[in-house]
């Protein structure tokens, strides 16, 4: 039987009185990208810091490739690459100097360092900046160097803590692409509070809220939570609310302004609304599905699981 890549068992941690993370348990057995979702202060970073050995948990057990990170931290950490929220860069070093230093810190064999350095630079698209000081790189490239340091030693598990935080849209796209690529041949845990990021790159999702694991499943399963259930329609001649509520499938209709209504429904009624509008000359001007906000989902999942 294959060893779990990551196994977290009843993980709890408190900084002072209150629990930052309470009884979290999950396992990761396959390669791919796991999105760790949660609102700010939910306990994502605490979980990741514990996972990477930056923090020692108050209770529970964390194993990486079957090695307990608290009992054998050095062995376990060899299997981890970590990019914290703020990339841990030495700005006075060049890209090569920094990555070489990171390779040595990860206890790579001296002969393996140079090939690994070239490979990771190519992979992260920073080869042409090898001799440049880190402080002279743009934010996006600094983040790429941060990612490079996390994977230079070819770890089994790579942990990215909000890797696109503070980047501009173009950089975000590039970094997501890079992470997706990294996730092809290893396990990546990605923490974020951006829903679109999760949808863009994650295969599997865990959601933490108020220190507890409130969701665990595939992207597909997660999307079910995101299934839209409201329409916003703008019409030149709005019908009475009662008439709309009489349409089968419509649960509730609220007026947003004189010409705009929010229709809560239980099954797909887009076509019905369009057809009725033509038929009854409501002069439909705009219709769109109102997406759930992540906060709504957090709230919903929290209510369900807490």
């Amino acid at each position: 039987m294959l060893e779990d890549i990551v196994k977290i068992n009843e993980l709890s941690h408190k900084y002072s009185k209150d629990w930052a993370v309470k009884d979290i348990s999950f396992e990761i057995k396959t390669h791919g990208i796991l999105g760790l979702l949660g609102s700010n202060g939910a306990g994502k970073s605490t979980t990741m810091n514990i996972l990477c050995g930056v923090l020692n948990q108050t209770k529970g057990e964390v194993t990486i490739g079957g090695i307990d990170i608290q009992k054998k931290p050095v062995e376990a950490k060899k299997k981890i690459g970590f990019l914290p929220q703020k990339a841990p860069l030495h700005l006075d070093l060049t890209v090569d100097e920094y990555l070489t230093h990171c390779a040595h810190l990860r206890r790579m064999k001296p002969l393996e360092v140079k090939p690994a350095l070239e490979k990771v630079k190519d992979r992260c698209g920073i080869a042409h900046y090898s001799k440049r000081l880190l402080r002279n790189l743009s934010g996006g490239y600094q983040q790429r160097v941060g990612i490079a340091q996390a994977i230079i030693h070819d770890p089994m598990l790579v942990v990215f803590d909000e890797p696109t935080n503070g980047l501009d849209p173009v950089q975000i796209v590039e970094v997501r692409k890079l992470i997706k690529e990294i996730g092809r041949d290893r396990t990546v845990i990605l923490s974020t509070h951006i829903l679109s990021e999760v949808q863009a790159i994650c295969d599997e999702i865990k959601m933490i809220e108020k220190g507890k694991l409130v969701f665990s499943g595939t992207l597909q399963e997660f999307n079910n939570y995101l299934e839209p259930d409201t329409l916003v329609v703008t019409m030149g001649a709005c019908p009475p609310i009662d008439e709309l509520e009489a349409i089968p499938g419509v649960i509730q209709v609220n007026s947003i302004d004189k010409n705009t209504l929010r229709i809560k429904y239980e099954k797909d009624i887009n076509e019905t609304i369009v057809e009725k509008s033509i038929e009854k000359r409501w002069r439909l001007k705009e219709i769109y599905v109102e997406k759930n906000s992540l906060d709504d989902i957090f709230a919903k999942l929290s209510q369900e699981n807490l």
Partner: protein
Amino acid sequence: MKLIYRIARIELNTLFYSPIAWIVLIIFTLQTGNKFTDLMDLHRGMLDRGRSIDNLTSWFFSWPFGDHSLLQFVKSNLYLYIPLLTMGLISRELSSGSIKLLLSSPVNFFQMVLGKYSSMVVYSFILCSILGVFTLAGGYSIRSFDYMLVLSGITGLFLLICSYSAIGLFISSLTSYQMVAAIGTFAVIGLLNFIDNLWQEVPVINEIAYWLSMSGRTDQMISGLISSKGVLYFFIVILSFITLTILKLSLAKQSTSLGIKICSYVAVLMVAITLGYITSRPSVTIYFDASATKKQTITQDSQKIVAQLNDYPLKITSYVNIFSPLIESSGTPKHHNQNFRQLENYIRFLPQLEMDYVYFYDTIPGDPGEIYKDNPELSEKELAQKVATSFGIDFKDILSPSEIKKVVDLSKEDNHYIRQIEYNGKKTFLRMFFDLNHYPLQEEISSALKRLTVDPPNVAFVSGHGERTLAKNDLDYRSATIAGATERRSLINKGFDFTTVTLETDQLAHDVTILVIADPKQMYTQEEIRKVKQYIDSGGNMLIMAEPDNRANLDSIVSHLGIKFIPGQLRQENEDFSPDFILGKVPKDALMLSKSFSFKNHIEKRYSVSVPTAMALKNYDNSQFQVTPLVVTDKKTSNELKDTESDQFYKLTSFESSEQAAMPIILALNRRVGKKEQRIIVAGDADFMNNREWARRNVSSMNRRQFIPNLFRWLSNDEFPVNAEYPPGEDNQITISAIGSLWFHIFFQGIMPGLILVFGAVLLILRKRK
């Protein structure tokens, strides 16, 4: 190990890719270079002006007072540099978040902290290497340079920098603000240098505070003395702060209660203090004196004495009169550690030495001190209570006059603050002094210790015929003999006992070591003269001092020795003094008195011995004694007779002019009597050791400093005073010329810091362009 090296290397890179490390190096080099060239100019100038300076290496590099010497100067500036270098070691990583790289890497805290610390060790080494350049320059320019002395000092500074660095490393781990780390490091270094002044009156705590103190630790090594406890102190400090740093980082990694955190830190400190206490015990301390002259070790003579005192406990009890003016500077409970430290050179050889204190109050005879004048309304007891309170001493612990008298009789010591050494039932006093130093020095301590191993020499002054006495009058001898606490050089402090005998009644007992007859005003009886002659014939040592006016009273005694007083009185041409004030020359033959280096030095520099109203001597029969002139006349001196009617002097013409140039005034006579060597001094003057000449400061005479101590050393058969002199260092010449000195200026104030500046600037500019 490799990982530690990698972390250290990256830390050094970071250090040298920022301007601060270069700025510190440049300032350090400039300041040190400036000091070195200043010292070079100063000493070259002094030598050029004809001054002789021994131990130039010490003067240049390790003179302990103030910032005079190079290494002391460096030491006093180091605390300014180190916090600037250490402030970022960990706090930079904490603020930038790069600490997570280390924490998530397969690196343990030990490797992480040691790696960072090692970078500072390398930087310390670079700083010390710069000092090495100055050492080589010193070696090049000073003859017989004492490399080991300087190496010891640089080692001390290296350990000090390493300790400062460890403190800085720990403080840096406490905060993410570099400036706070720098200020915190300043504060802790300041505290550790100052802590020996705190809580010194609280038992046990004072021991801990004293051990924790950094001040003086490096001084010892700069002076050339390396002790295991000094070196181990630095290692313990370094290891403690490294451990505290590891502890801080590991505790920050987990949620631990404040109580556990405090307990952990306290446990580390307790272990450190315990280790420090154990390693600083005298019985386990090992010493190495690196200096060429071995000046940091008591002399061979002193060592021979203390070697005889190791069989039983040795206890020094300080009897402290709380009315003594010395209590403020050296007698209160807060001085106990300091007092113990003063004796460290002895404790090195006498690890069993213990110190005890007995406080008392009693009237100090003579001029009442300010305390009495300021509080005329208070009784002595009330006054004592007031003084005790002001010094924080419990009045219950202070003995009253009647109580102290039951313990020890201090009446002869005028109830002064005094110490008593006790060994195997024998006791002797060791005085504190009313001079700038206050403390007894090696000559006094070793002489006192020697009194516990041999019978001290008993100097017996003959009285009964108007002789000079041990009183305070100008013409008497109190200062030179029994002045005690007020005169460090007084012979009583150098191991001698003084008594008075009368020839009329007393038999000259066997315990008289030196019989002194000084200027009797009346004739001795035949019986008395017989007693003296008998004493001489039995081989007793003597000092006979005669004045021209009363010479006849001693004629028969000196003629028994083959010596004759030449009629007349010596007169010397002098612009400043009356003609009867004679400055006698000391010929090189006088070196037979003693092997003292200072005595020899004084003779070579032609210091005189002042002999007012003196007469010349003649040795007419040298068959019995070997006779050596100690003080002779010079060419300006003539022998004249006084006409008692007119009170005028007229020149005697009975001597050849060549003889006039060197007529003996004081003679040393020695011969063998049985197994013993008999030593007798005959002086044609009784004033050279009187209170007036002792106090004289208006001529360059050596009476007090050299002549009298060495005279008595010879008379006591070289037993006392114990020789506490060190051979003069051979490093007494600067071999470089003015041009060479100029080159030093150019190199140390221009080229060397300039090269560092250029190198650093180029490196930083190239880096910045990347």
